[in-house]
């Protein structure tokens, strides 16, 4: 009888323990899919070309830069994309000599700090979007500062439409990779002294 009671007790505990625990999913999921991120990186790549354009008068090089094709990647996850985005931001920051804002800033970060903090460090397309949006703002800001001639920045914020299926993290990774490669090319150009630096720009600004 005691054995029976013990069995019942253990069974009861097991059933109670098996009941669903409270969900504590704090991952940043704002409902954004890889597609809008992809669209964002299309605009960022446009901005990178523009960035090169305002700092170099080498039209061929800029043309080559614009013709660089994206590489094909497979099985990339949002976390891989985010890592590459951060790499992009680091390179951009080095390029503009620290003009662009902090590399870790994201959109809405100062407005929704609690909402955007993630306890489990999971990376979602939304998080990649927040980082990427900030990248776009930063690079457009650089363009604005570097350009002497008026440049239409709204062009970089237009929404793009896609043909075919929805985009995947691998597709996004390809565009980010393209942006990184373009920045690397710009960095090479900068090293060779063929790029207009911020100091020069400032002197020009003063001269005007």
């Amino acid at each position, binding site marked *: 009888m005691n054995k029976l009671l013990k069995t019942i007790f253990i069974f009861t505990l097991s059933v109670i323990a098996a*009941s669903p625990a409270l969900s504590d999913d704090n991952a940043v999921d704002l409902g954004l899919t890889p597609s809008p991120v992809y669209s964002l990186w299309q605009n960022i790549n446009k901005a990178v070309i523009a960035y090169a354009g305002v700092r170099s008068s080498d039209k061929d090089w800029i043309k080559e830069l614009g013709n660089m094709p994206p590489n094909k990647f497979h099985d990339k996850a949002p976390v891989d994309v985010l890592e590459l985005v951060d790499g992009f931001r680091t390179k951009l920051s080095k390029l503009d000599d620290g003009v662009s804002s902090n590399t870790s800033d994201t959109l809405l970060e100062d407005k929704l700090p609690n909402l955007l903090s993630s306890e489990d460090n999971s990376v979602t397309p939304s998080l990649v979007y927040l980082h990427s949006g900030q990248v776009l703002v930063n690079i457009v*800001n650089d363009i604005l500062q570097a350009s002497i001639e008026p440049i239409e920045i709204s062009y970089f914020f237009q929404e793009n439409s896609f043909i075919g299926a929805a985009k995947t993290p691998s597709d996004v990774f390809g565009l980010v990779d393209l942006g990184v490669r373009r920045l690397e090319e710009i960095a090479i150009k900068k090293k060779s002294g063929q790029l207009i630096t911020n100091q020069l720009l400032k002197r020009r600004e003063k001269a005007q």
Partner: protein
Amino acid sequence: MISALKTLTINRLGKWLTSFLILTAIITTITSVILIREITNLNTLWVSSERHITQKQAYLSVLRGSIGYGGMIHNFKNYLIRRDKKYLLSAHRSVLEIKIIFSGYRVLGVSAEEESAISDIESVTREYMKAIIRAEILIDRNYAISQIDEQVAVSDAPALLALRRLTNAVAALRQEKAKVVSGSINSLTVTIYTAAIGIGLLLVVVILTLAWFIRFRLINPLGKLVTAIGRVNPSVPGQLRLPSIGRVDDELNMVATATNRFLDSMENHLSKRRNAEKALEIAKEEAENANQAKSEFLSSMSHELRTPLNAILGFAQLMQFDPDTPLTDEQKDSTNQIIKGGNHLLELIDQVLELAKIEAGKMSVSIEAVSIIQLLDESISMVQTMAEKRNISINVNTDDCPNVEAMADYTRLKQVLLNLLSNAVKYNSDGGSISVVTKVEDDNFCYIAISDTGPGIPDDKRDAVFQPFNRLGHESSEIEGTGIGLVITRKMMHMMNGNIDFKSEVGKGTTFWIEIPLAEQASMSIPSTAQTQDDIVTIKSSIGAGKKSYTVLYVEDNPANLMLMEKIIERMSGVNLISSHNAELGLEMAEEQKPDIILLDINLPGMDGYEALEHLKINEKTSSIPVIAVTAQATKSDIKKGRHAGFVGYITKPIQVPELIKIIEENLNTKA
């Protein structure tokens, strides 16, 4: 259900209860689990709902900033006024943020109202986006502000209105969620109540069933069983059984059945015991009958042995006390020895008979203060002649305890000493010696040691000394003996609270000693039965002095005894003896001749002495004649019986002549 309960057994109830309890436990567990899950779900619902609403409110707050002051509209207007693309970039940034906020908002789930408001805001945002793009182009082309205003004018009101609607929708949502949670709590409360009542009812049913069972199927039958067991009476065969209780498979009925089996076994045992008791009773009756027969045999033996002894001792006494023909000294010694030996034989007969009594546990002793010196003198004198014949000297040393008295039966202790002394003579060497030593031990015991110089007793025969009819190899020797003397001796010593033991050395001799409790020092008075010749002469003289003739009728069937009586009566002048050999003739003679005294034997052929006495008492002619019993029936009970029957005197055989003469004289003198 009721019939099932009525046939419920303890075993089945146990199973039912176990099942009920398990069922109750399972129901309780499942109910608890369900309730816990419900509560968990409710909590999840509430927390989730709260979180969503909180998030939505946070989104709304951010949205206001992104749309209004510091946001899209504000930056757009600043750009128009200041024409600094920094504001334009901020406006674009705000648009991006608005887009993200709405996306996140939708993840939380939206109502139709919310969706409508969001769509309106998005629509306004799109209008602004178009206006921003258009304004940038126009400003870059240096259009006048008035021209630009005309082309990019967008109304803020729809967006602000939609924002308010969205805020209200969130507030309404909170109220709705609160209502849902409240409803769930109410529903849960009802469920908990229902479960509690259901489980409670189930337990009530179980408890009531158990109570019913205990009352009607356990306590009542147990009460009946106890009552039935209380009525069991082993002495009444019919009441050694329990009634059937309940059904056949009922445990209590099984108990009753098992008890009945036990009672059957007990009854069987009791029956055997009763039979055994009956057999024992029969055996006891038989033993008592046998004992009675033995007593009668002993009485008969006593009578038969005393009768010839009566003649021996009687005639010896006549020879000794005959004044007409006085005996020489040597003759006197001889008759003395005859009388002493006869008396001893008489005592031995008594003792042999008493051994039987001892064995039957019927022997009694009369403890009194007796003189050890006197007993020794008497005993030694009795063996002196026998010792002298074999040239054995007897040395007595009583210096250590002169005039000591012991608490003992006089006759028994004398018999003990005589037995030890005669053994010391019989088993001594010719020309040997006997040493008798007395001393006091521990102030409480008298120690008497009798040592001989005989061959001694080997150690391997030591244990056989006190065994009856064991003469240690002297069975075929010339030494006379029965082999029971030491057995009687030891038994008597024990009965007198004394002890006996011996030590022996082969070739040197044996010492037997006895220990007997001492009496308090006091003057001893041993009644002496010895009669002197002068007493007899005196009696004879007193009868002769009356000059009257008396007639004594003696009824006796034994010729020797009759002759002895004739010889005794002849010595009494003036007394005539008439005799009869049976009672019938004696009665006739008594009626016809009216004697002065009748001497009546009891054990007579035909009518016995008691019947004859009755006839004499009934008959007026003989009723006044004193009747004296002269009989060999000499036990105490015989004497008591005789006195009770009406004999004026009771003389036991062998008769003591002086005693007989004395009692005759007393009765004749009464006549005179």
